[in-house]
């Protein structure tokens, strides 16, 4: 083939592919953006049931959590209309609802029984009393601990322990020679990783992010106590390199039998008692610890389904949300995969079901969720909604920077005092720029 022919063929191919490519058309199917986790992937597997029932086809776009956040935020702010349903969390829902970016879910059918949604979840996914996203599953955080190591240490875990007990138990369970760390906690930078953990923990020490005038509170004794306690306990009983550990790293350590205790999302309970865990038979659960000030250190989160205001297929999207977050769906999963695999933490009726309450971690998950109140998360009054976050648009950016300073302190790159000073400056500067102060 001559060069001229090759060149012409290449040009033609380019034009053909381009013209065909520009002709991509959105079909009548609904498109759902979601995260990659066990419950969401399971739901994708049952999509055919929904299509068979309603005739509505479903396209899934599954992305990693942070990528998904960026993608759906861009789509909703530019009115891109790429998605008919978005999987969003408790942080985004009230903010986006207030901005008018989401379709209110105030006309769900009677059979759906909206009053069955756990009040804490419904509250966190509403703005001014209007529900903007339906919870697919909800979670809090709790202690997962090794019953065998606790017994060997001669201790007994109370149902509602204090931080003092946790630190004492962690020290007793630590066995460096056998690579056992008394406690594993998140230290990784990121507002949804170590930032979420330390914020929830700080609530139990009487700290808060802002006072009622939106002034940062990192210069208070409560924050210093929180960080000093965390670092002291982790240096003594935590794994090496804990400053870079997040959910997955700790899950890996716990499943390999290298953690005595792990305080993290309740959803992890099914992982540490599942087939991939080497310690599945010796795991106990307890409420996240407190310091006796009236607030525990557990958080509240839900992955929920919401409809962006720009969608052309609102009715179909609502139909899907009713199906996916219904009690019928829970029963469908239970019938096929057992009660331990149903999406937890969304509906009251699930915890009244005798089949489910037999699942080892069910009651503790419910107790943890019920003990978390996003509208009253701090000992002293605060102007924001949210437990491990403050539901304002600026929070994610600020908290990411602040958690980077904290992680640097955990790693010994700076002192706790320096980290808190920087956190105070970062936060006040950002809040001033945003017009809060």
């Amino acid at each position, binding site marked *: 083939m001559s*060069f*001229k022919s090759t*060149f012409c063929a*290449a*040009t033609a*191919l*380019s034009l053909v*592919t*381009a*013209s*065909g*490519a*520009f*002709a*991509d058309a*959105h079909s009548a199917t609904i*498109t759902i*953006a979601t*995260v*990659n*986790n*066990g419950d969401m*992937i399971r739901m*994708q597997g049952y999509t055919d049931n929904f299509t068979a029932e309603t005739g509505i086809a479903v*396209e*899934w*776009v*599954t*992305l*990693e*959590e*942070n*990528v998904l956040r*960026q*993608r759906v935020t*861009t*789509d909703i*702010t*530019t*009115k*891109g*209309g*790429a*998605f008919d349903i978005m999987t969003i969390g408790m942080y985004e829902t009230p903010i986006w609802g207030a901005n008018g970016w989401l379709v209110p879910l105030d006309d769900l059918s009677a059979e759906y029984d909206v009053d069955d949604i756990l009040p804490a979840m419904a509250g966190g996914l509403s703005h001014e009393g209007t529900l903007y996203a339906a919870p697919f599953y909800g979670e809090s955080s709790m202690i997962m601990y090794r019953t065998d190591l606790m017994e060997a240490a001669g201790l007994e875990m109370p149902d509602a322990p204090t931080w003092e007990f946790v630190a004492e138990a962690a020290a007793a369970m630590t066995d460096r020679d056998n690579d056992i760390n008394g406690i594993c906690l998140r230290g990784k930078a990121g507002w*949804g*990783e170590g930032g979420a953990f330390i914020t929830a923990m700080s609530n139990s020490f009487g700290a808060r992010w802002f006072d009622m005038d939106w002034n940062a509170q990192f210069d208070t004794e409560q924050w210093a106590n929180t960080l000093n306690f965390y670092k002291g306990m982790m240096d003594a009983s935590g794994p090496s390199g804990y400053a870079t550990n*997040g*959910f*997955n790293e700790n*899950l*890996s350590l716990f*499943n*390999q039998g*290298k953690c005595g205790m792990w305080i993290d*999302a309740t*959803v992890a309970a099914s*992982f540490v008692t599942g*087939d*991939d865990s*080497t310690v599945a038979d010796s795991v106990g659960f307890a409420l996240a610890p407190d310091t006796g000030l009236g607030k525990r250190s557990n958080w509240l989160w839900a992955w929920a389904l919401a409809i962006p205001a720009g969608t052309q297929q609102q009715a179909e999207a609502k139909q899907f949300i009713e199906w996916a977050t219904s009690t019928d769906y829970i029963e469908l999963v239970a019938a096929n995969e057992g009660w331990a695999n149903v999406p937890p933490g969304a509906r009251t009726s699930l915890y009244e079901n005798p089949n489910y309450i037999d699942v080892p971690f069910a009651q503790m998950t419910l107790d943890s969720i019920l003990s978390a109140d996003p509208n009253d998360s701090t000992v002293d009054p605060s102007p924001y909604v949210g437990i491990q976050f403050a539901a304002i648009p600026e929070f994610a950016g600020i908290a990411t920077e602040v958690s980077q300073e904290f992680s640097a302190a955990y790693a010994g790159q700076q002192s706790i005092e320096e980290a808190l000073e920087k956190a105070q400056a970062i936060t006040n500067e950002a809040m001033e720029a945003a017009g809060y102060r």
Partner: protein
Amino acid sequence: MARAVTTQRKIITTAAAWTIGLLIFFPIYWTILTSFKTEAQAINDPPLFFAFDWTLENYAVVQERSDYMKFLWNSVIIAGGSTILGILVAIPAAWSMAFVPSKRTKDILLWMLSTKMLPAVGVLYPISLIFVEFNLLDTRGGLMVVLMLINLPIIVWMLYTYFKEIPGEILEAARMDGATLKEELLYVLTPMAIPGIASTVLLNFILAWNEAFWTLNLTAANAAPLTAFIASYSSPEGLFFAKLSAASTMAIAPILILGWFSQKQLVRGLTFGAVK
């Protein structure tokens, strides 16, 4: 006079080359190896190198969950299309800069390169709004244009460098023989620069294939390429490393094979003009 190469020097150079090569290849090797483990074996400490029960289960799960061929086809179309479009624009541009330079040519070249210094996220909103306005979101054509524009500075620079190595007298001779501009470009310049063009095409194809910012942010269900396929297996809450590795292996396999078979051409093109 050629410098004598001692045996000791040969051994050191060879050892260094192999060490660097193996270090570069190790992450790919580890990804491929992990894809044949169970999720529990994937996180085992100490890491398992060979002594584990090899399984194809992850590939089966990935195949069942995702339409791999759809993602692959999108990758081929987007990477291929953007490369062809890029070459069509870059050849005349590089020709004019190499053989008919103006006093601003150097500035233009530097300005083109400076666009690569802007973080992609800096123009996320303008590009997204343009895509929404022109109904290009989640279309392969839209992505082809964006990726072509992103890689264009590199293509033009590479071609410019290759073209500069070709003596202008040859083109002048062609002109004296009555060749038109089109004929000069098609029959004289391009055939002489084939090694350079080939390596530019390959490099651009690889860059477009691996691009993971725009391909994630401007697609949904229809035009998503293999980068989106990999992203769908990444999770901060759940240990799915083995499945992620299987998806990654499936995504990089085509480009790895292409690179393997064309490495001679690639190296020849990249070193074209390096030694005078």
